[in-house]
């Protein structure tokens, strides 16, 4: 091993002369020296000799391997598309530079390097050798690749960036942590509360005792909350732990809140590291967006991409095996379903609710922030949307009137408030969002049509599905059908008196027959809504009384039966 290590520096130094950035090479050497302590390094170094010999065939092999580990390891789906295009630009300069170093060097190899370093990648032990070997040579390429660096690469940079110390935070890392902090707490000088931080760090899937230990290390002032430096420290420790570094007993000097990071920018970005991936579930998308935006190699496509990433990250939360290839497709679909930090809900329900934050996010930062803000406060949104085109009012009215008509005796009044924002936002989407949104809407269409069918069947089955009426309404909205008040007025007496089957065909017929109408005024809409609510209330009251009577009857029967069971002789009971 020592020989190998010695061999490596020798090789590097011979090449270092050609390198425009020999410093990094030195760093890498040093880092390599550290790795003897780690099994990965051992493995890698043992392979290095082999890799040196067989470097030529490696690059092509590595490239597909790179993809594979990317797909298997990269939980940060959102990052894969930006990463792959990001890789290609640096690959050319790196390839250019690699010429003097031989065919071994690859832009992908740098990615592979860190893949190797990431623990928990048993599937790619072979890469460990080649990446580690390549990483040394690819040092000069790192800065270039660093630019492209997605958040994923930040942690990988962790491994190579440590000029002295794995416990040093680099600039990119600090920037990433800043974004994450902002996603939790917009004010950088303020504190993150313990519970908030706990939920956030729990997403990293580290065991609780370790998280507890990390907290102990990072909460220097022991106040139960994290300041920004403390947060960076904690995050950094988690990232390090994810990469296999054992947790220190005491806080390293470089991680103390008072320490100012000199910022060594190195480390070719390689495979997405676990912590970044994990955190991407909710918060990271926001940070990723920011990061991507700042790096911005992709240009304007990034915000849309990142937005999609958010969506996808949300959906991917339960999973941890992202596949980059299907990601772009899923992105569009997931684009709508995002941002609820809560557990995954039904996609349909999510699309409605999650589109809310989407519609208002103009920048990626806002997205991150709004994600946090919007889920708790859906109600205020309708006011914002009202300023939009009258089509929104149309949607709202249609939704409410449709609700009253279609559901007949089972329109749930509580569902009314959340619905208008959803529908309004849907109308927002076509206007305000990018083309990706439109792609998103198509799944909406599909879903809502399904819901419509569900709704009809549910009406027959006397089930109360709050979501179906609004969804069917919104579907109709999307299809551009305007609410028909006269028809609906006609429907109301019918729906209230008729049985569900009759109401359902009527509502369906109404929907199908509905044609475009000039948008009604707001006042009329409100009045219509009020009237519908009243009718709904009346229907529900009647239903309630009927059910109460039934309940009494059943109760009486039950008591009778019980008494009969207990006593052989018949006993009159009330």
């Amino acid at each position: 091993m020592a020989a190998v290590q010695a061999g490596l520096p020798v090789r590097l130094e011979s090449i270092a002369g050609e390198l425009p950035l020999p410093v990094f090479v030195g760093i890498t050497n040093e880092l390599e020296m550290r790795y003897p302590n780690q099994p990965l390094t051992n493995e890698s170094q043992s392979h290095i000799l082999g890799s040196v010999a067989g470097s030529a065939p490696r690059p092509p092999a590595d490239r597909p391997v790179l993809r594979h580990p990317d797909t298997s390891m990269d939980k940060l789906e959102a990052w894969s598309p930006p990463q792959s295009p990001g890789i290609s630009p640096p690959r050319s300069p790196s390839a250019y530079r690699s010429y003097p170093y031989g065919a071994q060097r690859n832009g992908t190899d740098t990615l592979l390097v860190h893949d190797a370093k990431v623990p928990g990648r048993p599937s790619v032990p072979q890469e460990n050798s080649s990446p580690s070997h390549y990483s040394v040579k690819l040092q000069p390429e790192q800065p270039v690749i660093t630019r492209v660096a997605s958040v994923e690469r930040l942690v990988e940079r962790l491994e190579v960036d440590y000029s002295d110390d794995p416990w040093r935070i680099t600039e990119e890392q600090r920037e990433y942590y800043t974004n994450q902090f902002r996603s939790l707490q917009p004010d950088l000088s303020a504190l993150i509360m313990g519970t908030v931080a706990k939920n956030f760090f729990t997403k990293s899937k580290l065991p609780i005792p370790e998280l507890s230990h990390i907290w102990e290390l990072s909460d220097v002032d022991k106040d139960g909350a994290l300041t920004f430096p403390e947060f960076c420290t904690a995050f950094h420790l988690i990232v390090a732990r994810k990469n296999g570094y054992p947790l220190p007993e005491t806080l390293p000097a470089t991680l103390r809140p008072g320490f100012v990071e000199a910022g060594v920018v190195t480390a070719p970005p390689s495979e997405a590291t676990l912590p970044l991936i994990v955190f991407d579930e909710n918060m990271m998308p926001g940070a990723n967006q920011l990061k991507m935006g700042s790096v911005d190699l992709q240009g304007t496509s990034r915000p849309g991409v990142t937005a999609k990433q958010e969506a996808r990250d949300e959906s991917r939360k339960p999973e941890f095996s992202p596949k980059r290839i299907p990601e772009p497709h899923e992105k569009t679909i997931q684009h709508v379903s995002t941002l609820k930090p809560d557990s995954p809900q039904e996609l349909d329900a999510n699309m409605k609710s999650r589109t809310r934050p989407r519609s208002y996010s103009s920048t990626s930062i806002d997205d991150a922030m709004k994600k946090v803000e919007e889920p708790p406060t859906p109600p205020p949104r309708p006011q914002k949307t009202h300023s939009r085109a009258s089509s929104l009012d149309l949607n709202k009215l249609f939704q409410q009137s449709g609700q009253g008509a279609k559901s007949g005796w089972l329109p749930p009044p509580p569902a009314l408030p959340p619905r208008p924002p959803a529908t309004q936002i849907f109308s927002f989407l076509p206007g305000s969002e990018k083309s990706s949104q439109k792609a998103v809407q198509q799944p909406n269409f599909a879903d809502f049509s399904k819901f419509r069918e569900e709704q009809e069947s549910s009406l027959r089955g006397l089930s109360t599905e709050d979501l179906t009426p609004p969804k069917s309404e919104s579907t109709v909205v999307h299809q551009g059908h305007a609410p028909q008040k006269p028809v609906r007025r006609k429907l109301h007496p019918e729906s209230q008196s008729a049985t569900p089957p009759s109401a359902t065909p009527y509502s369906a017929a109404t929907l199908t027959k509905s044609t475009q109408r000039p948008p009604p005024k707001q006042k009329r809409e409100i009045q219509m809504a009020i009237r519908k609510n009243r009718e709904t209330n009346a229907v529900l009251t009647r239903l309630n009384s009927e059910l109460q009577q039934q309940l009494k009857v059943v109760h009486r029967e039950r008591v009778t039966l019980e008494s009969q069971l207990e006593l052989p002789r018949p006993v009159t009971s009330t």
Partner: protein
Amino acid sequence: MFHYTVHTSLDVVEEKISGVGKALADQRELYLGLLYPTEDYKVYGYVTNSKVKFVIVVDSSNTSLRDNEIRSMFRKLHNSFTDVMCNPFYNPGDPIQSKAFDSIVSTMMVQAC
């Protein structure tokens, strides 16, 4: 084997704190003093504002520690305990696994011996 002693001393602690009717709690109230001198050891009690009880069992053969020392021990215990509590990953009621806490406690015990 000290668990039995500690549990019996809990009754004494309860008895002491139930008698206190004051709303405000100051250091004096927290420190309960010698709870229960047996032939072998002394038991000191301390209750926090959240009704978490600390019990220290000291060997009587040990040249009796002064009251101040016991108080300072309790104070350190209390501080370490609040540090542990501040950790959001710690569920109150779980056995404390904090290394820092353990180290402080061991240091204290070594000091007392």
